[in-house]
């Protein structure tokens, strides 16, 4: 027979009450059926996948969340930098008023070239000057403000990856902006 409630000392009762309250609270917090109200920041596993998985897409909601949440953006940038095939930090100020036309880092060169097909289109060209075991599969640009931009890379032709973009696309604007950081993932 266990001791009855009436025979317990006051500290014992308090301890058991607290134990009960804690158990019930833990049950309730884990068993809840709906998320708490309000905007949820992006989860770390989502950030990790977007930054590290070469084939992962950067979804629009996640990109928007990264723009809005400093903590998440810092984590995304750190993961991207650590795992990138090549990382282009903030560049020196551009000589041209339209911004940078090219960036170079660790054997990679990214440059922009107007397209003959249309005045509002430009080629984004990426050349890899070195033989590597790992090839980039996407380009990700982190502008100083606003959502990051990600574009998958096609197969290279003779070491050159070629994308065609609108002149005013977020990717082109980010590459031109010296304050942006760029990763080849």
């Amino acid at each position, binding site marked *: 027979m266990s001791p009855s409630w009436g025979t317990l000392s006051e500290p014992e009762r308090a301890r058991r009450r607290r134990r009960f309250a804690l158990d019930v609270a833990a049950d309730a917090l884990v068993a*809840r059926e709906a998320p708490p109200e309000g905007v949820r920041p992006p989860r770390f596993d989502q950030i990790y996948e977007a930054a590290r998985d070469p084939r992962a897409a950067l979804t629009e909601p996640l990109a928007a969340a990264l723009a809005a949440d400093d903590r998440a953006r810092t984590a995304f940038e*750190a993961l991207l930098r650590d795992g990138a095939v090549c990382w282009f930090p903030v560049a020196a100020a551009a000589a041209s008023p339209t911004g940078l036309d090219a960036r170079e880092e660790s054997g990679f060169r990214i440059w922009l070239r107007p397209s003959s097909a249309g005045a509002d289109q430009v080629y984004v060209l990426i050349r890899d000057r070195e033989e590597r075991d790992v090839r980039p599969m996407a380009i990700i640009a982190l502008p100083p403000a606003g959502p990051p931009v990600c574009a998958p890379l096609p197969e290279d032709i003779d070491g050159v990856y070629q994308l065609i973009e609108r002149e005013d696309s977020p990717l082109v604007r980010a590459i031109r902006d010296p304050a942006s950081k760029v990763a080849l993932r």
Partner: protein
Amino acid sequence: MTGRILHGADEVLQGALWDLGQIGDENGPKYPDAVLRRLAAKVLEGRAHEPLVFRLCHLARAAAFAAEEGSMGWLEFFCDPGAGRAGWAAGWFHARLPAEGGGSSEGPPVTRGAAEVVLRYSSRAEPVTVSFGAMPLLAAFMEFLLNTLPFDSLGGAASSLSRPDLGWRELQDTANALSRSVYAWLREHTRPVQDSRQFDVMARFLAERGEGDDFAIEDIDDAAVLAFWRGASLEPETEFRTFRKTFRTFLRLAEALREDAWREGIDGPEVLGGAMERAGREPADPSSPGLDRMRAPWSVGDPWEGVAEGEDAPSPLEVLAGSEIKFLLASEVKRLTLVDAHGPFLPPLVRSLLRDTCFGQAQGRISQGLRANPAAVAALTGAPPATGYDEEAESLGALMVHLDDLMLATVAALAAAEDGGETVRRLDFETLGRGRRLLKGLRRRGFDRVRAGEPEALDDLRRTIPAMVALRQRLAPVCARLREGAPWDMLQREDEDVFAEQFARIYGTTDAREGGAAS
């Protein structure tokens, strides 16, 4: 604090715990509910996170050593969808770390044993171990921290932990710094859990039913649970609307009332901002009581003796469900959840267990129906449960047989590998022969590897033996009571009347059937 406080947690903390439950892939959630529940208890319970932080630092160091190159390689372990299962963690470290060669102070900084990783620090003679069984909780804790603390603080800590020549004092410093960050975050987002309204209502009810306005754990019986629910479920704004919630809260009350040795460590838990902090105590002092409780309970002694219970030890069902060998199907895990969590309290409450399973499910359907099609609810309140009492009792009995079969098959597998210790050596030929036949017939995932004698599969088997034994020990008395009470059909019919009447009262339907009081 942000938003509405619920059970000691503000909305940010509620959201962080919710987020952990949402992580997963096509194979299901990354972390089992039991792991998340233990983590929730840790973060709510004053400074209970401190020993956890210390163990987490050891695991982060082990993961950094085992991972591929890169300063953030340690995240490979924690961010993998398998990290919520001990069996996956064991396989991951087995594939990446050298085997432990024994000895106390010599050898590589991080190695792996059969059931744990082993870490050596300069300036400390004794190695430290982190069991594979403890890893799902630690991985969930790390992911909780990755979702809440600034990434720089965790990345910086992990970076210093990955240094090969790390000394014990440096490990302590890193753990203490991380613990302070956790402490500061929790202090911002938690309040002491002191709400005892539910306790008071239940205690008052039991005292009124008991002798001399007093009560003991033995007063929590089937009749008391049902009678309480019949009254409390009708109160406005009640927290006891469902039988399932009521029964499970009574089980928590029974736990709180039980004299329990392993609860002694939480006597007067220190609240955040308490006297210890004011006295300048280092938060993650490795001599903290409770640190040893994180060790694998099955790493010492005879595994066939079962799991030594401990506050931080994974439950037997968690161990079995977390194995790479498919001992239990998802439906079997679900059926055993209450037995696993509350086994010692269930034998006198087997009728409530049957009510919980059969009518709890029915009440869940009514609640869903209320949201989807209120007009159809009247038909649901009087409907018999989808599962009958006898059927449920038989299913639990079949699981007992299944656990017995698993143990015999395990014996046969270990005997074939000339392993298993004294318990296996004592077995007769007939038992071993039966075990061999059972092993041959098991068609679930992973048993082909066991039959082939793969060392990792046998290691997995050895790690899970105590859990099998412990789960069987919890289930056996429940099944015995169910057999004693069989057949259950008469009692089920009595209960059908009672529940139909009560559902009609709760949900305001008009076709209530009259029914007598069941016990």
